[in-house]
């Protein structure tokens, strides 16, 4: 039995899926997005967050039984209220084996996978077999820009997108709008082309820029240095998606 490292279990997360739900944030992510608002989710190791309020450990090891047990206690709340559990991160694909073991121990309840799509295809398939809905991030369509702003190529992400689409699991594509970076007409049009007509695509969610993105860096002992101007309003171009025949909304 594998254990997993979790940096937060948040109840009543209103942005992570339908109904009332709890989100499990898995620690560790292969990407280093410049706009990441959960910097404590990047490292795979437990760490200490320090603030004027004191210090606290972030990242605890859970066994699948332990985590599933805790989530199962809440299933009575989820089931009649359109809710369930979301596995997010960090990047849950990095701990796919653990997540799969947790899901296997869950009482029947809707499970949502919130992923960057960056990961091993076998890990993705392992989870696709077990979840009911996928939130799939697409950030930048240009490989060079992707490498620049996230530290990784987007090739595995684009190829995994096809895997998700062919899996039969419905999915939502989520695009974080970052001023001057992801919100350009060119990028959004490229994303629209990439998702156009994909089987299983429910809709595209455009996520407004999170102005609190940099809030936790100091406490995590890191520095937030965006190359873009945070104060610029993001451009919300829904047109390109509608033109591609896809449902789109500003989340």
């Amino acid at each position, binding site marked *: 039995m594998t254990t997993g490292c979790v940096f937060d279990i948040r*109840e009543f997360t209103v942005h*992570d899926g339908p109904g*009332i739900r709890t989100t499990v944030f898995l620690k560790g992510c292969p990407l280093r997005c410049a706009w990441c608002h959960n910097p404590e989710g990047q490292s795979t190791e437990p760490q200490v967050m320090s603030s004027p309020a004191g210090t606290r450990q972030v990242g605890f090891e859970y066994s699948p039984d332990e985590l599933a047990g805790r989530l199962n206690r809440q299933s009575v*709340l989820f089931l009649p209220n359109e809710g369930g559990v979301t596995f997010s991160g960090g990047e849950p694909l990095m701990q796919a084996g653990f997540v799969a073991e947790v899901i296997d121990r869950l009482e029947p309840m809707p499970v949502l996978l919130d992923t960057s799509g960056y990961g091993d295809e076998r890990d993705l398939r392992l989870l696709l077999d077990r979840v009911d809905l996928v939130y799939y991030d697409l950030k930048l369509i240009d490989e060079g820009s992707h490498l620049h702003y996230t530290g990784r190529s987007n090739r595995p992400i684009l190829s995994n997108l096809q895997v998700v689409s062919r899996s039969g699991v419905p999915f939502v594509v989520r695009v974080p709008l970052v001023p001057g970076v992801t919100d350009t007409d060119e990028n959004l049009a490229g994303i629209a082309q990439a998702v156009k007509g994909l089987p299983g695509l429910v809709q595209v969610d455009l996520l407004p820029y999170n102005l609190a993105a940099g809030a936790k860096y100091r406490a995590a002992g890191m520095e937030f240095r965006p190359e873009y101007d945070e104060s610029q309003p993001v451009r919300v171009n829904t047109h390109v998606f509608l033109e591609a025949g896809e449902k789109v909304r500003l989340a």
Partner: protein
Amino acid sequence: MNPRLEVLKQRVRDGEGRALRRQEPVNILAECEAEHLSWSKRAARLTVRQCEAETPVLSPEEHIVFTRTLPATIPAVYAADEWDHLTRGRTLHELGPVSNICADWGRALSQGLLGRREVALASLKRYGDEPQAVDFLEGAIETIDAVLALAQRYAEAACRMGREEISEILTRVPARAPRTFHEALQSLRLLQAVVWLGGNYHVGLGRFDQYMWPYLKADLEQGRLDEGAAFDLLAEFFISLNRDSDLYPGVQQGDNGQTITLGGVDRKGGTAVNPLTSLALQVSREVCLIDPKINLRISASTDLELLTLGTELTRKGLGFPQYCNDDVVIPALTACGYRLEDAREYAVAACWEFLIPGKAMDVVNIGAVSFPAAADQAIREGLLAGENMAGILNRVRGNIAEQVHDLAGAYEKLLLPPAPYYSVLMTDCLEEGRDISRGARYNNFGIHGAGSANAADALAAVEEFVFRDRSVPPAEIIAALGADYEGYEGLRVKLAEKAPKTGNDDDRADRFLVGLFQMLAEACEGYGTTSRGGILRPGSGSAMYYVWLAQGHPGMREPLVGATAEGRHRGQPFGANLAPSQGVQMRGPFSLLLSYGKLDYRRVCNGGPITMELSDSVFREPESVRKVALLIRAFAQQGCQQLQLNSVNVETLRDARIHPELHKNLIVRVWGWSGYFCELAPEYQDQIIARHVFAAG
């Protein structure tokens, strides 16, 4: 809201009506003494003279009138020495007068005061040979005539000012049954304001959408009103209730008990939700004032639409509606001896407690058991005596029973002054020739168990570290508590941060929470019948006790406690109602509901809500608002009893401490009621700021 209503609202906020109040209260003592009046007649004379001394005030913008022009001070009906003689050896509840009950407004409206007068006259004949009944009924009739005369003077003043409509309305009501929604609101306004004039307070308005709906329905059906006009009338009525919201001279401003209860089921158990239920929620959202405080009765099967409407109101940050779960409350009341049809009619008193309008002379809050004191004394003495956890819990049980006995014992000598006018408005006081102060169908006392989370956490910490992992020797806990943790900071942090905590769905702590309320219920049940023929109803509210029990208050009957074993320093306030101890790490709203779902609410029938603060950021998107509505439904499905859900922004509260002038209209839920943050004493402001706030995830 239209400009006229905005003007009325602004005047209320500026206290313009209050500036019209005369300085000196009327003096009625001399005549009471000269005529050797009975107490009952004195109480009636008080209402009569107060009504006579009122000066009609009509502003051109008003369509529903009555502005109090008498001071908040209520004239004495007995000289000080006589009063002492009268009350010696007796217990007065709070300020003394009958308070915190709810009239049978539906009956008073539909019969009109002339109808009530006929009832009184008939009873005078029937009870003609019972001097006490005669004395009461004569006084009641005097008050009725005084209110009718006051209405007449208002009608005449309106006529002089060319306000024919108002004049006509006040010629009709409250004398007779209203013919329209407008007349019904005007009648209610006057009937209720006179209760305050007589010195009674916490004047609840009961099931407003039930007794008012027939009038509105008829207007809508017959085309006398459209929805917009109904909205405006209701908004004006709500605004008018705020004109004198300073009258309650008790603990904190705003705690005036002007509550309404909406929704729920009817006497037969069918749904009682009607269009006025929604309209009242919508109007309250637009008016955005602290009165009336709204309670919404729901169940696991309530429409999500209604819950969403409630959430839209919560989003405004007014601290209401408060939700009551009929699935739990009604069976609890019947288990306490209430008739099923009556139980279905429950309304909420000033804060949380369940009352049957018109039929209850319950004293819903005779005091609080200090769970922290009960647990703390048990922990210190039990550890000193070398006892195990079972021994300590036995002591807790004994301490709780002793506190219940002390509180209830004091109220065996309860003295309630007569309230002839209030009696006119009750269901069968006139019918039976008996003043409400002498009792009604239900005459129960409520005792709340306060500080439950802190006490449970203290017990859980002791069990965890003294008895389970044995990492802390008993002597160290005793010494640390005695020293208020001075020199024991390491231990304090361990107790505060490493021990299991109530509200996290952790049975290691929650089992003590459940146990405390069981013990309270046992103690209340074991007490038996009181001298007023009622029972003790255990509840889970905290009222001001979250500050008093921690910091003390002159004249309080409850024990004060020092540092406690959950790692709390002496003087730190306790959590409100059913809420976790302040400052502990929380898992979230779901665990909170699961924890509090473990209580046996059938035996805790006095009310007291789960109190949950959500960051205002949760309410930003319509989709999230709907999710809050789902959360409320989950509360009902879990079999919890009462929920107080607040939308707060802690930064705003902090700023209001520094710049009160910028936040005059900032409203917060204080305990069972909402008030203006800047009008609160600092210790209450601090307690509110220190509550757990669940952010949007």
